[in-house]
């Protein structure tokens, strides 16, 4: 309660809220300014959202693996072009005292035939031993049992609808069969993984079935090796040991490193990051121009009034503060609708593209900071006009 008298004193020292009145008593100008700022904010939200959503979407499946370290071939460049390496490299890691368990994983894109309209589309197929742990989701082990039968797959119900109404039919109790690479497969269950940037859908199958579907896979070759460590072991130390002991035909990564490897591919080897960052920059610049125009014309229109205030004995910094507060108010008032519209558009994007685009705090803060910089920067530029207010000229 000790703060209350202080607050009361500050409250009692308040003056006419000139910035607020300047803005609100010109509703048309305020509406244009807020529309401009909100538009810029929405544009930035969308561009950053798409960019981050696409990068996050690239590791939808990566995130699910139950693993500490990952073995991949150095020739692999991304999830859409995984190269094989000898399975025995993964087995060799068992010699390390800290390695608790391994799971060899086959990983490739295959052509899935839509059981309804018979069109084909590329889908990500993961092959593993049904008894091995694959994902952190504990429900998978029970579902995986069905894969012990040859020709069965688990279908990702979050796959894009272009793969056919597989999940609906399966739930209705129908037998859903399809073709992969000319081989018949039957859907033995549903899992929920999610689409990624490189794959519009996913299926899980046993190593045995996988070998049948992709007969060109060299025997004993896998694309991903999962390594689980004993509790309490230091992954960095184990990685170093494994790197020293294994030949150079494999790369050892942490799970995070595996996810970064995938994200870096999309970030660096494609124009996505550049395009969307550029889009956000355009929004920022458009917003700057609008706010600057609004504030500059506002200061110009009121120049005689500012000069009058200076003649009355108001200090120039006080008047600069009025313009600065106008900028601050514009930023706050313009951000709120942008935030609300961003939320709405994100949910629209999620339902239309199944990309994991969410309003996360860092992005909300980033866009707010950019809007703040935009408004305060423009206010700073508009302030220079105040220097032209000469109280001696108003008589």
């Amino acid at each position, binding site marked *: 309660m000790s703060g209350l008298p202080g607050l009361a004193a500050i*409250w*009692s*020292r*308040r*003056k*006419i809220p*000139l910035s607020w*009145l*300047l803005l609100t*008593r*010109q509703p048309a100008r305020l509406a244009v300014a807020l529309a401009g700022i909100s538009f810029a904010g929405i544009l930035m939200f969308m561009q950053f959202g798409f960019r981050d959503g696409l990068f996050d979407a690239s590791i939808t499946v990566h995130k699910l693996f139950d693993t500490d370290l990952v073995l991949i071939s150095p020739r692999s460049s991304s999830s859409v072009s995984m190269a094989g390496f000898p399975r025995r490299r993964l087995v060799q890691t068992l010699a390390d005292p800290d390695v608790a368990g391994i799971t060899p994983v086959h990983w490739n894109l295959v052509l899935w035939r839509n059981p309804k309209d018979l069109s084909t589309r590329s889908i990500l197929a993961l092959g593993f031993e049904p008894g091995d742990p694959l994902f952190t989701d504990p429900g998978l082990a029970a579902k995986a049992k069905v894969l012990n039968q040859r020709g069965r797959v688990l279908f990702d119900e979050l796959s894009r609808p272009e793969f056919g109404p597989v999940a609906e039919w399966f739930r209705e109790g129908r037998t859903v069969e399809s073709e992969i690479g000319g081989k018949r497969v039957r859907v033995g269950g549903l899992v929920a993984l999610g689409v990624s940037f490189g794959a519009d859908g996913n299926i899980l199958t046993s190593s045995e079935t996988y070998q049948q579907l992709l007969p060109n896979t060299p025997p004993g070759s896998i694309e991903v090796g999962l390594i689980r460590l004993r509790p309490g072991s230091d992954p960095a130390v184990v990685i170093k040991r494994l790197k020293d002991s294994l030949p150079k035909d494999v790369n050892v990564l942490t799970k995070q490193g595996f996810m970064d490897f995938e994200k870096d591919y999309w970030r660096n080897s494609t124009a996505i990051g550049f395009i969307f960052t550029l889009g956000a920059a355009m929004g920022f610049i458009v917003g700057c121009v609008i706010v600057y125009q609004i504030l500059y014309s506002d200061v110009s229109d*009121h120049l*005689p*009034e500012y000069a*009058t*205030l*200076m*003649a*009355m*004995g*108001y*200090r*120039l910094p006080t008047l600069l503060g009025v313009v600065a507060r106008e900028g601050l108010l514009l930023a706050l008032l313009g951000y709120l609708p942008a935030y609300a519209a961003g939320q709405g558009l994100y949910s629209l994007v999620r339902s239309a593209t199944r990309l994991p685009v969410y309003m996360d705090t860092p992005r909300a803060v980033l866009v707010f900071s950019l809007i703040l910089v935009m408004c305060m920067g423009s206010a700073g530029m508009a302030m220079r006009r105040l220097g032209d207010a000469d*109280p*001696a000229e*108003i*008589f």
Partner: protein
Amino acid sequence: MVEVEGLCHWYGSSEMRRQVLQQVNLTIQPGEVVLLTGPSGCGKTTLLTLVGALRQVQQGHVRVLGQDLNGSSRRQRQQLRQRIGMIFQGHNLLRCLSAEQNVQMGSDLLPNLGYRARRDQAREWLRAVGLGDHLDKLPHGLSGGQKQRVAIARALAAHPRLLLADEPTAALDKQSGREVVDLLKRLAREQHCAVLMVTHDPRILDVADRLVQMEDGRLIAAPVPEPEPAL
């Protein structure tokens, strides 16, 4: 209150330099109402801006409210202006503020007063100029005379000891012009506030305690006319 001695002022530089004030001497006593008349361009307004601490003094000696303006800094002049009330030819009210808020822009300059006290003072002043019913009106909803009365209330709200007015009746008809200067004089008297008013308007010269005429940058004393006989 105001002491001006040997004041000279020039506009422009080098060959374009033009002298507008030549050896001006003027003293204003506390509470005195001084009217300054003369043809356009004779330097009246320049003198007003120099006394009002709106311009730097070039040559001569100006002392206002006990402060020397020779070689004064921007900050000193700004602080001095807080103690000088100014009324302009146009009303120069802030368009986005109501009458009450405009007057409070004046009383907001008073230190150590709470918001409520300053607001109440602003209302008090508007009542004093006869606008108690128009507190919340924006300037565009007021007539010319009413706006000028708001401007007077605003100038007086900062408790000035000196009031400078530049042709306050120029934009007003005869009757409202008369009302405005009478009001100005009455309130200034009540506040013991000295007034220096520049005017062209021959109809209001009789409010002056002293009339000063200016010609080509020099001051000439002139007799105060008798009040017009009431019609």
